[in-house]
């Protein structure tokens, strides 16, 4: 099953690649449309839009998913129901493809809901309590986005069909489009885990590592960004885009800080993904959709590679994900550490790897166009923080002493996993330049002063030095985290925002409902309906029995009495 789906997806990737090259060189885009039913004033059509953006994205999705499926043949080989896993992954890819190629809100909804549902199924794949909680958090956060898209469908019915791309030119200043833009931004924010909804992404690391590599690094979380790229023409000078800028910058900053306090390997990578997502969203909301798309694609490559390396390391470390147990791995697993290092350096934006092209372009565009001071500071600070946690990670995992056990076997030569990582390694080295030659038919004009141009390098060097210094732990090192406990816990726990989605939603209501239940359900309503009425009737019956248990002459006398009463009563 693995090999079949790997070959199918790889072949699909090649087809997409060739079509992409043909389409972008000739400036083509193809629009298929099949009208299913036309009912009163709405037409329900199934349409497929193939332009260079969707073909490119499909190529990358199918490449990563084929590599991940090949990887999971070895990673999950002790899994009894591997076929079930592969089928879930294939369904996920199918939903993603449906989302990518659709210019039509109904098929976007199908893809979107499919993504949410299947990512839930994949997160709860290991059936333990942590996975259940994580899956519930993931599914419900994504559900908010689904509801938003449903409401958008409802509002777009004003225009007569659900093909939104035709209406952007004409209806830009309409009130309906205002509502739709608000809702689409919230939908994208839930899917891409921006600030109010960001608690599900670190929690979803309870999923198996191939799932994290495919879903939580490159495809699911970028679906929101992709949707906003499609809707970009509508949103470009709306107020909500500036709100999105604010929130995504804060996401970028916050997750960069929180990644520095984390000790779980996959959580660090998840927070790094969150930070890069914030970067993508913020550059999108500044008005550069193609740069956002470019960064989306390159980020997909090296992040998937990073997750796969993390998977190999976790397998080797006897399923331990805590980086404090790891160390010195560069000596023992050279090929895996090669992949890990290249993807980490690409994440930092080291020159001429793939991440450099997109990240550097983003930072130079931010410096070149005049935005306000906070945007500038937070962008550069987040870049520095990226380098900081990356170097900290490399120090803990690769360079410091090995912390696990006295006797160990660090086995790297699993060539199935390694071959899949090499494919992504190749792409992660070259995709930056290759994409920039394709996507940008002419380069951006950027004219910066010397120090501003080197600002990236300055913050990177600063971050790397700090990363090196933080991870130097010895026997007598003071635990600086405990010194500033309040500040540290605030920064470490993602600024306490996960409590919004978990504790805050359940505790208040459950507490209130306990009060209601005790006082009303088991209190006053018992007195006024169930138990109370029974007591009243019982007392009436007991009272009646006093009259019933009497001598016979009393009965006869009562008859006479009744006669007289009735006589008088009705006579009057």
């Amino acid at each position, binding site marked *: 099953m693995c090999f079949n789906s790997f070959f199918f997806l790889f072949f699909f990737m090649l087809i997409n690649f060739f079509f992409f090259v043909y389409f972008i060189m000739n400036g083509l885009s193809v629009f298929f449309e099949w009208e299913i039913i036309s009912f009163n004033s709405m037409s329900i059509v199934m349409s497929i839009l193939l332009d260079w953006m969707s073909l490119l994205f499909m190529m990358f999705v199918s490449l990563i998913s084929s590599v991940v499926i090949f990887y999971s043949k070895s990673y999950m080989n002790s899994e009894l129901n591997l076929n079930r896993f592969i089928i879930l992954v294939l369904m996920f890819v199918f939903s993603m493809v449906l989302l990518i190629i659709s210019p039509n809100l109904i098929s976007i909804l199908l893809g979107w809901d499919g993504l949410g549902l299947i990512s839930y199924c994949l997160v709860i794949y290991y059936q333990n309590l942590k996975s259940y909680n994580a899956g519930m958090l993931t599914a419900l956060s994504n559900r908010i986005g689904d509801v938003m898209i449903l409401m958008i469908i409802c509002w777009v019915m004003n225009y007569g069909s659900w093909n939104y791309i035709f209406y952007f030119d004409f209806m830009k200043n309409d009130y309906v489009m205002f509502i739709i833009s608000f809702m689409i931004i919230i939908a994208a924010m839930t899917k891409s885990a921006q600030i109010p909804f960001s608690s599900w992404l670190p929690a979803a690391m309870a999923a198996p590592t191939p799932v994290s590599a495919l879903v939580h690094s490159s495809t699911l979380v970028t679906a929101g960004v992709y949707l906003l790229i499609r809707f970009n023409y509508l949103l470009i000078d709306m107020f909500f885009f500036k709100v999105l800028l604010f929130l995504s910058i804060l996401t970028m900053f916050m997750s960069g800080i929180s990644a520095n306090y984390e000790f779980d390997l996959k959580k660090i990578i998840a927070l790094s993904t969150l930070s890069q997502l914030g970067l993508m969203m913020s550059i999108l909301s500044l008005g550069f959709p193609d740069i956002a798309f470019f960064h989306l694609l390159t980020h997909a490559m090296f992040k998937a590679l990073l997750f796969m390396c993390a998977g190999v390391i976790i397998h080797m470390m006897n399923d331990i994900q805590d980086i404090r147990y790891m160390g010195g791995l560069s000596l023992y697993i050279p090929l895996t550490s090669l992949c890990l290092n290249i993807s980490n350096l690409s994440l930092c934006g080291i020159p001429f790897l793939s991440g450099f092209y997109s990240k550097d372009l983003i930072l130079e565009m931010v410096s070149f166009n005049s935005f306000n001071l906070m945007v500038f500071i937070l962008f550069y600070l987040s870049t520095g923080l990226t380098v900081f946690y990356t170097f900290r990670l490399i120090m803990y995992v690769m360079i410091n002493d090995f912390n696990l056990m006295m006797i160990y076997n660090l086995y790297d030569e699993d060539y199935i996993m390694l071959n899949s990582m090499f494919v992504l390694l190749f792409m992660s080295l070259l995709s930056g330049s290759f994409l920039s030659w394709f996507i940008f038919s002419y380069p951006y004009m950027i004219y910066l002063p010397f120090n501003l141009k080197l600002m990236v390098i300055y913050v990177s060097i600063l971050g790397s030095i700090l990363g090196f210094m933080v991870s130097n732990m010895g026997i007598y090192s003071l635990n600086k985290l405990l010194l500033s406990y309040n500040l540290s816990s605030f920064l470490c726990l993602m600024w306490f925002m996960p409590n919004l989605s978990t504790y805050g939603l359940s505790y208040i209501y459950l507490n209130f409902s306990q009060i209601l239940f005790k006082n009303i359900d088991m209190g006053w309503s018992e007195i006024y309906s169930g138990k109370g009425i029974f007591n009243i*009737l*019982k007392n009436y*019956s007991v009272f009646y*029995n006093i009259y019933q248990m009497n001598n*016979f002459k009393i009965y006869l006398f*009562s008859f006479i009495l009744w006669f007289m009463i009735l*006589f008088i009563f*009705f006579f009057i």
Partner: protein
Amino acid sequence: MFFFILTNNNSNKMFFLFILFFSTLISISSNSWFGCWIGLEINLLSFIPLISNSKNLLSVETSLKYFLTQSLASINFLFMILIKFSLLKNFDMNNIISIMMNSSLLMKMGSAPFHFWFPNIVEGLSWMNNFMLMTWQKISPMILLSYYFNKNFLIFMIIMNLIIGSLGGLNQTSLRKLLAFSSINNLGWMIFSIMISENLWLFYFLIYSMMIFMMISLFFLMNMYFMNQLFINNMNFFIKLNLLINFLSLGGLPPFMGFMPKWIIINFLLINKFYFLTFIFMMTSLIIIYYYIRIIYSSFMFNYFKMKWVNLLMKNNMSLINLSSFISISSMILSTFIFM
């Protein structure tokens, strides 16, 4: 009744049974009020030998109590007839004399507020005599009631019947007293139906007597007089089911048979805007169903109560029980096929 008479080796009582039937016919088909009174008297005279059994002190006392109340009622009835003849030469019904006549007839029937003798006497009679008392003895006073009644007075009496029938039965453990109070409650429904039309009363009465017959024959076969006797014997499942269905049917629960007459009466009530009366009918029915269900649920539901140290074998004559269950369950639905 016939079984009982025959098994007790006392076929002299058959004679009195026939006279009982004829007395009712005399009473309802007579031209003048005097004939009605004659029928009522013969009814009383022929019922007393049926219920008295000189070997049993309780029986004697019961028949004496019955004689006293019924004769008091007959005397009153005769007196009011004579007053009506002599003082009132009119035909309108809503006056004081009709109140007095109706009161005496209500006392004959055992309806509130003259009902205090009814549970006592029912407690002293055997099941078959109870059946006679609860069904046949109500016919002639009811029909006489329909000839000359006072509407306001009767509605007041109906409400009293319903309330006393429901509240009085809540505190009882003897099955006879329970059915007595249920009978008082159903008297309320029957009086209202006879105010609507005699045809409707006949319909209600027939269904009521059929239901009472099924219940009483079940209790008679198992010789059960008190609630705690429900658990002593080994009732098999179908007898318990039959008991459940009959009780629910008597309470007026759809889809059983007993729902049909109540439904028609409620229909009439609502169409003619008797809303308050409908409310009282409904609420008292709920109380009555409550104490029916209370009787059987602990012997019938999943964890039912069964005493195992007394192991009585029961003769389980299934055909009658099956037939009565079938009739109770399906007759309402089948009647829609036949009549509508």
